[in-house]
């Protein structure tokens, strides 16, 4: 049953129920709701991608905006200049991201840059690349890259031009795929190796696990997944600015949901994305009612702090326990 679907498995049933509900959602949801759900799913997908590296293998990256940006710019620029379909562009983006990830991983792990230092190394590369793109004319430099918005009459999934509900199904499929892929990884030997490295690298090394190679695989998989999310962002937003796509704020936003939801768990990134988006939207509405603009972000920070103090392991492990799913759903 490893990696396969088992219908008596509680987590599988939960997942299938959720999936059916989500597939029907666009039929009922309005434009506003649909855009919120796309935001949630996108954050869940990116969180999952980061989770592979941090949650499974314990390597702290604070520069994942780098891979988002590379994926977005590779597919976006190829589309603008040569009309390359986004899915092919995404492959190119993944290639570039994997190259960067390999470089960062190889340098960092070989030179024993660990923990916070490794996180800072990832920030440094992301910021370095941001400034580089700010000055690179072919991709529009700091004035941005714009994807032509036309042909809106029908949904073209190959060229990713179309309605919001098409984008919704695309990102839903990506989340579902990301989930199954993460689950497969976690249940295979590689997942157990990663967890051993995460818990105690020296002990894992002593057991004969090839720590360097496994950490590299985690970084590479995580980067490739993230850059696919970048492609989605490029075609969904239709505009790209180095300032925002590579920003440290994006790197932070990307990991918040997973940490709040529960690092190293499969449902954590999804739950965290739902909770944070609901919190953000709820506070926006509340802020409008009260009439104080800035209060939203302050309350957001305070809620984050409260969750950290009350549930430092994340919300999913706690919820899983409350739902009586312990031992079933990871």
């Amino acid at each position, binding site marked *: 049953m490893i990696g396969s679907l088992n219908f008596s498995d509680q987590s599988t049933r939960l997942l299938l129920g959720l999936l059916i509900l989500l597939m029907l959602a666009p039929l009922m949801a309005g434009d506003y709701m649909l855009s919120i759900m796309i935001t949630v799913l996108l954050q869940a997908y990116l969180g999952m991608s980061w989770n592979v590296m941090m949650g499974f293998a314990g390597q*702290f990256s604070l520069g994942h905006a780098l891979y988002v940006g590379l994926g977005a710019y590779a597919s976006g620029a190829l589309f603008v200049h040569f009309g390359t379909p986004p899915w092919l562009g995404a492959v190119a983006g993944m290639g570039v991201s994997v190259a960067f990830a390999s470089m960062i991983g190889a340098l960092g792990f070989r030179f024993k840059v660990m923990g916070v230092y490794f996180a800072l190394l990832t*920030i440094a590369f992301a910021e370095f690349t941001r400034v580089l793109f700010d000055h690179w004319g072919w991709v529009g430099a700091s004035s941005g890259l714009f994807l032509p918005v036309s042909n809106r009459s029908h949904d073209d999934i190959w060229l990713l031009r179309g309605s919001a509900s098409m984008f919704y199904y695309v990102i839903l499929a990506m989340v579902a795929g990301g989930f199954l892929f993460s689950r497969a990884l976690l249940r295979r030997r590689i997942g157990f190796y990663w967890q051993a490295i995460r818990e105690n690298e020296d002990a894992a090394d002593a057991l004969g696990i090839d720590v360097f190679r496994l950490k590299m695989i985690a970084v590479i998989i995580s980067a490739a997944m993230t850059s696919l999310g970048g492609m989605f962002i490029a075609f969904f937003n239709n505009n790209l600015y180095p300032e925002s796509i590579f920003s440290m704020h994006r790197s932070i936003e990307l990991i918040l949901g997973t940490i709040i939801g529960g690092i190293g768990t499969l449902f954590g990134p999804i739950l965290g994305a739902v909770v944070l988006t609901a919190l953000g939207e709820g506070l926006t509405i509340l802020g409008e009612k009260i009439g104080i603009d800035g209060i939203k972000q302050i309350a957001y920070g305070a809620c984050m*702090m409260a969750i*950290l*103090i009350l549930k430092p392991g994340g919300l999913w492990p706690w919820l899983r326990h409350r739902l009586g799913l312990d031992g079933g759903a990871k």
Partner: protein
Amino acid sequence: MDASFFMNVTSAGLLTGLVYGLMALGLSVIFGVMRVVNFAHGDMMVVAMYAAFLMFTKLGVEPVMALPVVAGGLFVLGYLLQRFLINRFLGVTEHIQFLLLLSIAIIITNAMLMVFGPDARNIQLEASFESYSVGPLILDKVRVIAAFTAGGVAALLWAFFRYTTTGTAIRACADNPIGARVVGLNVEQLYAITFGIGTACVGAAGCLLLLLVDVHPHLSSDYTLLGFIIVILGGLGSLGGALLGGILVGLSEALSGALIAPSLKSMFSFGLLILVLLLRPQGILGKKP
């Protein structure tokens, strides 16, 4: 491009670098003793800059004179934060600590945005328009004042850690927290004082930086990152290292800004960081772990 231009740019970078160094000192002290990475460092500096701004515009107190008050205020802020909040998170993993400080940073930045709005503010002193000329060099008066004050504060800090009982006790905590507890030191209290000292440093640096740059709430993350670059360049936990790192970053910013393009200056700083992390991860003056 003649030699005097080059020398002027270099000396300006050097002087600004000392102020950067003072800011990074705070970060270095906090990390060196408690292993806490203060991701709200830049935000605390923005608080200090606004405090100095208010002191000048409302009370007419110049930033250098306001420095002891602002630094004292930030000491209290840091002390309380450590005592009641961060202390609970000392044993936990890095990413949880990071998120905690990030949530503090989010709260501070947005509180500043609410109170002061997004616009950049600056102050005009009489000294802003004066300069010293030393041989071929022309030095801005405010930059010289800021740099020398920063150096003075750093020297005071060094003396504190070297010669006072509390300073020695804090160094003991940094070396071996369990040992420090065994010999009867109040580690929680000392940690809170340390965090206070760290934030006081950034408070002092904020006052001085207000003499050189405009302040707006979104400066915070840039300065947090800048602080990290500096302490890693110089070596975490090393006082001299933080100043050296500050000067290096000040120089690299000034030179790349003047010779290539101002918008590229942060790229050179990050480039320096990458180089140091790979070639000498413990920093230029840091000891091997």
